[in-house]
């Protein structure tokens, strides 16, 4: 299934402090979108809004699923959730659990252990599967969260600063992953301060809105 997200006149303010203003955009599958803007422009807020975690925006957001015959249907909130993989600033890693245990629940106990171990291997955590996450470094914890990408079947990825705390090799591996996954039909929306070398990269700029 391929999914696109359409924004119409989406704007956001926190208690009368305006963030981004009337945003019209079509996020289409098979592409990587990078949300750019100054600090405080509302990048995280936009991602959280798309994920359905924040509701303080004005305007409309539509999730459309394209069928084979070019017809598209709107997705309800529950369908949006089941098609979405969201990784925020905070990766959702429980310090009391091992990386493997963390991945198990983060994938809602629907993925078998072997693929999860392979995913941990691919993010460079081979040998760390059974060590409490509390003992891992910040970058390693980040990798545990990102290991979900390798077992994800979700058509939409929303990634807030996925590349922070990662070394150069890891960044390159992830960039390749984004590229190939986008090519296979995913919609990837992310924020990052690092340069990304992806052919299909589309940058969405958030501009400050002044208060009316």
């Amino acid at each position: 299934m391929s999914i696109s997200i359409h924004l119409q006149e989406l704007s956001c303010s926190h208690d009368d402090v305006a963030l981004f203003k009337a945003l019209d955009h079509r996020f289409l599958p098979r592409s990587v979108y990078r949300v750019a803007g100054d600090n405080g422009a509302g990048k995280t807020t936009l991602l959280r809004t798309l994920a359905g975690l924040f509701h303080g925006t004005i305007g409309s957001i539509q999730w459309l699923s394209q069928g084979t015959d070019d017809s598209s249907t709107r997705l309800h909130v529950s369908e949006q959730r089941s098609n979405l993989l969201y990784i925020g600033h905070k990766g959702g890693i429980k310090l009391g659990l091992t990386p493997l245990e963390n991945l198990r629940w983060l994938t809602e106990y629907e993925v078998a252990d072997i693929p999860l171990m392979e995913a941990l291997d691919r993010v460079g955590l081979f040998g760390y599967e059974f060590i409490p996450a509390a003992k891992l470094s910040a970058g390693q914890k980040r990798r545990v969260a990102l290991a979900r990408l390798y077992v994800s079947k979700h058509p939409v990825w929303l990634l807030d600063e996925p590349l922070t705390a990662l070394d150069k090799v890891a960044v390159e591996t992830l960039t390749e992953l984004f590229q190939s996954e986008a090519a296979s039909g995913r919609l990837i929306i992310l924020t990052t301060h690092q340069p990304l070398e992806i052919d299909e990269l589309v940058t969405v700029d958030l501009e400050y809105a002044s208060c009316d």
Partner: protein
Amino acid sequence: MRLSMLAKRDFTLYWRNKSDVSNALIFFVVAVSFFPLGVSPEASVLGPISIGLIWIVALLSVQLGLDSLFRDDYEDGSLEQLALSETPLALIVLVRLLVYWCCVGLPLSLFSPLLGLMLSMPAEAYSTLILSITLGTLYLTAVGAVGAALTVSLKRGGMLLSLIVMPLYTPILIFGSSSVSFAADGLDADGLLLVVFGLTVLSVSLAPLAISASLRMSLENG
């Protein structure tokens, strides 16, 4: 999400971080032991107030642990992952409530006869005490968790949490401790225990809805 696996996960976390549970129990024992020091060690003084006292301290013990019920999950980002799950958040919350109750409420009720003994509680009331605290702590967990969910995004929510939920504990405190008093006086406490049971069923079935709505609100501050 398979809820049994989720329950196992929550139990594992409590098992690996036992202080959450043991602190509530230790508080229960320490606070109750203070009453003879502050009031009087005489059995004739302690006996009559022992029931209410144990009930109130049990209430406070449950209350003190509630602040951390969703806090870790909020701070490490797992709450937003749970909120984005296909499984209704209210069910996930219900699992969490039951696990918390098993880890804190049940041990408290098992400890309560021991404290009753120390406070010269009338012997007839022990079984009713255990039963009413078992049910009562479940009510307290469910209702208190609404407050915990509302204050989870606040840095210092603990005090506020107590302020907003304690008035809501009135009915269970009244009926819970009265049922034990009835039993102590040799009266039939079954009717009151049924009221306690009814209140508990009501709160456990309604509270998860309020809690999941509150958690989603709190996530907007994240």
